[in-house]
């Protein structure tokens, strides 16, 4: 076990739903500023791991520690991005971003300060023109940009993303990757990303954990050596391609195991 200064620590975490064990004895840590991805077959329990850190569900064995304390429930220190966006349809783009700032937990922030925060993330996520639009009129990519702006406006310490780009087309996805890298460069958060895509995981992360078929175990913990800031040129880099090949093989093997489970 590494030092106690880890921001997030999974300590021998297990989770069962009735007789079905979805997570089995998982231990890993996130340090300040880490961007860690979990890749593995669908249905393998990755989302359950994130839900335990988000505080939506509790482990049945072991502990999920947040700055040394067991996670008690959801909180504004952990922003969550869902695949289905979760943008509030009854609020305009601007008011979606403002939502978290208008809650009682933020009453110490002054009004013009709140407006400045909203403006900042409208700009960073290129949504200024759509500030008064309803979410129903936004594309999938724009909705996810809005969800990201809303999460950032609440100034969380951690960013938890559950297949955030899974519903987007390839081009929008690539665009979102660079937007995410950009906003992470401007304001580093300690991040956990769940994804199916090995490319996405390597491109965005400084560490990738490969997760086994159900019940989830950590099969491999891969350090991604490429420095930040990253650009799309990295995707053509020889070392990137070699790493991707090695990890794809490993992930494919987990998929095969998961299929055998069914």
């Amino acid at each position, binding site marked *: 076990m590494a030092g106690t200064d880890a921001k997030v620590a999974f300590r021998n975490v297990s989770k069962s739903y009735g007789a079905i064990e979805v997570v089995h004895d998982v231990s890993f840590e996130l340090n300040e500023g880490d961007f860690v991805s979990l890749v593995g077959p669908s249905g393998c329990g990755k989302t359950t791991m994130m839900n335990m850190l988000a505080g939506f569900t509790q482990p049945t064995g072991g502990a999920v520690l947040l700055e040394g304390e067991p996670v008690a429930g959801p909180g504004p220190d952990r*922003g*969550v991005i869902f695949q289905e966006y979760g943008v*509030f349809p009854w609020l305009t783009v601007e008011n979606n971003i403002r939502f978290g700032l208008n*809650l*009682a937990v933020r009453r110490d922030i002054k009004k013009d300060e709140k407006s400045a925060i909203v403006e900042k993330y409208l700009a960073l996520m290129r949504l200024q023109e759509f500030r008064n639009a309803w979410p129903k009129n936004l594309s999938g990519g724009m909705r996810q940009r809005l969800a990201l702006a809303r999460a950032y406006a609440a100034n969380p310490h951690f960013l938890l993303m559950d297949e955030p780009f899974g519903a987007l087309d390839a081009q929008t996805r690539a665009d979102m990757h660079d937007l995410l890298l950009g906003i992470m460069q401007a304001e580093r958060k300690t991040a956990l990303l769940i994804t199916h895509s090995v490319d996405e995981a390597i491109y965005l992360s400084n560490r990738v954990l490969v997760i086994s078929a159900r019940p989830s175990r950590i099969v491999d913990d891969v350090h991604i050596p490429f420095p930040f800031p990253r650009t799309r040129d990295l995707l053509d880099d020889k070392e990137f391609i070699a790493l991707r090949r090695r990890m794809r093989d490993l992930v494919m093997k987990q998929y095969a195991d998961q299929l055998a489970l069914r």
Partner: protein
Amino acid sequence: MSRLADALWRLAPFACVVALWYGVKWSGIFSPGLLPAPHEVAIALFERLRYNNFLIDIWLSVQRVLLGLLFGMICAVPVGFLIGWNRRLRRFVDPLINFFRALPPIALIPLVIVYLGIGEIAKVAILFYAAFFAAVIVMYEGMSQISPIYIKVSRTLGATDFEIFTKVIVPLTLPHVLTAARVALGVAWATLVASELVAAQNGIGAVIQNASAFFNLPVIYAGIITIGFFALLMDTLLRAASRRLLSWQDSVEH
């Protein structure tokens, strides 16, 4: 200009019905005494308004419908809300609610007379019954479809339970309240004539029944058309309110 065209387009179907009506009248399918012409009905309506205080009957009926709707909604919103959120409670009361809803209000009239007499309360009670059961089902079916993701998101932004209620659940409930009100309004108008069977003295339903006793077909038609007119008018108002309040929703067109 396009607004005028739009308004005309909306009135066109009614013009078609009137034309069809004249067509049937002049074709001689019905003997002349059994089918009044539209202009005869218009004259009967005008005379009712002019000499028989028909406006008072209309006002009484509108009042009964609105009171039945109001009390029905006041009860249906919180009850539907609770049932919608609590799956076990829902399984428990669902058969009961469907049973009571399936009873035609007209079949309850003898009981209503026994327990509530023949006054205004009895009439409003029947409309309340009809409005409540129609609205409560719309409410709880709508509530149970609300996606939990918005609640999850607001928790991760730091919302308290009270804030989740006022800032997330209330706006998500509003569309269902408005739909429930529209459904209940329609049912209340449909039940009006039945409710005014209770010692019919006044109201549009009473006018129709009295006219029926004298075989006064133009007045019967005039009464029916008046009910349709006010039901449509109120529905149009509610729909306009929905459009304004729910412009964020995908499905609000018309």
